[in-house]
């Protein structure tokens, strides 16, 4: 059998998803036995024009990680859609926008102002900002355009499968690769490499009735390792997050931050978190309720940490 042609690409991402491919360990040998890597900028020397020269539909599988925030990201998403039979949004950023998606609480100008102007370590008296075109004696230099809004891969092109996780765990990634190598593909549009329940179902801690009088930030306490973190007042997003990660963070006393995205049938993870927290906060008077809520300093940052572009409202209103 001819080897499958596989491409891997990173758009607006941190590189963690690239590492997670290596997390499959020695199975990487089984992977390359069945697959030929035709593009992987993180690890191998290919150029964009190599992909452009390939016939349309000639790549069997592209694992695309990272969100779409620049014209370059968008161009590559469209290019890989054209060239690939199966396009997978790999990791939280491609699937839901991820950490880069938190930029949707502001816009390009807000980000540029911060980065090139108001950060304490920046000295930029001429107010220089990146330009898409710059004339220099040698000719014209070009940079991709930076968009106001970070989007998911599926908001940009048609996507076949979604693999959640920041990053996806090695075992789950291998399950996905195995399914693809064995031509054992689920229904188009499915979330693969994850479960059908929530992280609470995988969490080994004991759970009792929850009544929260105060929230504490995780670095200020040493939590009891056997009791539900939420019951200890530590905000944990496990109840509104898809399972599949093996509750790894929770097992080292860190709360779930929600990277596997909403569980099946839920679109807006943040709304579900609001709903659940509303049930368990132990107060009935508005003043007391608000005193407790003041202990959550940045609700969007907590509730939409990995999925702001994927959420129903997607971004802050641009005035």
């Amino acid at each position, binding site marked *: 059998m001819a080897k499958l042609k596989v491409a891997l690409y990173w758009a607006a991402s941190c590189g963690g998803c690239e590492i997670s491919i290596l997390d499959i360990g020695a199975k990487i040998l089984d992977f390359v036995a069945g697959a030929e890597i035709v593009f992987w900028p993180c690890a191998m020397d290919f150029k964009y024009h190599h992909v452009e020269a390939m016939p349309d539909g000639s790549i069997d599988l592209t694992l695309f990680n990272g969100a779409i925030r620049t014209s370059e990201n968008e161009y590559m998403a469209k290019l890989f859609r054209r060239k690939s039979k199966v396009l997978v949004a790999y990791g939280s950023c491609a699937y839901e926008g991820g950490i880069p998606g938190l930029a*949707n*609480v502001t*816009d390009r100008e807000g980000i540029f102002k911060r980065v090139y102007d108001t950060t304490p370590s920046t000295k930029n008296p001429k107010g220089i900002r990146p330009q898409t075109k710059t004339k220099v004696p040698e000719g014209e230099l070009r940079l991709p355009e930076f*968009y*106001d*809004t970070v*989007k998911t891969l*599926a*908001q940009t092109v048609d*996507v076949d499968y*979604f693999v959640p996780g920041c990053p996806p765990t090695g075992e789950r990634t291998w399950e996905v690769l195995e399914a693809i190598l064995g031509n054992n593909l*689920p*229904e188009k*549009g*499915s*979330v693969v490499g994850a479960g059908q329940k929530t992280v609470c179902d995988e969490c080994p801690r004991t759970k009792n009735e929850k009544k929260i009088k105060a929230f504490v930030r995780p670095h200020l306490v040493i939590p009891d390792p056997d009791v539900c973190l939420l019951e200890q007042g530590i905000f944990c997003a496990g109840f509104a997050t898809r399972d599949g990660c093996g509750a790894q963070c929770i097992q080292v006393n860190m709360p779930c931050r929600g990277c596997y995205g*909403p569980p*099946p*049938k*839920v*679109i*807006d993870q*943040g*709304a*579900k978190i*609001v*709903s659940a*927290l*509303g*049930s368990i*906060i132990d*107060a*009935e008077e*508005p003043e007391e*309720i*608000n005193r407790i*809520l003041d202990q*959550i300093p*940045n*609700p*969007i940052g907590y*509730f939409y940490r990995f999925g702001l572009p*994927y*959420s*129903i*409202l*997607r*971004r*802050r*209103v*641009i*005035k």
Partner: protein
Amino acid sequence: MFEPKIVCFLCKWCTYAGADLAGTSRLEYAPNGVNIRIMCSSRVDPEHILWAFDRGADGVFVGGCHPGDCHYQDGNYKTLRRIELFQRVLKQFGLENGRLRLEWVSAAEGRKFAQLMDEFTEQIRALGPIKLGSRKGGQDGGSTKKEETS
């Protein structure tokens, strides 16, 4: 003149009955609200409110039984806490808090319901048509289609 679109989630045991009373008493009030009867105000998930906004509502009204009177004992306290928290989230999304309103209206308070509808309609009229990031901010003008998860 701008006519606001308003979605009202009203609990069956109190506010919806109050709205019924307003009707049977032939009270006149602003017709901008579309009433949706739910079993308890706590059935309103913040996701429902987002859907309403995303699909064109300029305002969302949630009506429940007075504190202590919820047919399911403490449902309305959950609603209160959710709405308080959700207002903080909406503010970060750049939405005016005046677009979402929670009120307690009993089955006997038809007049109060009618007054609240007039008041809330004017409140939304003053805020103007809703602007959302999902529709205005994206490079594509934003479609609301989401990928289906299995």
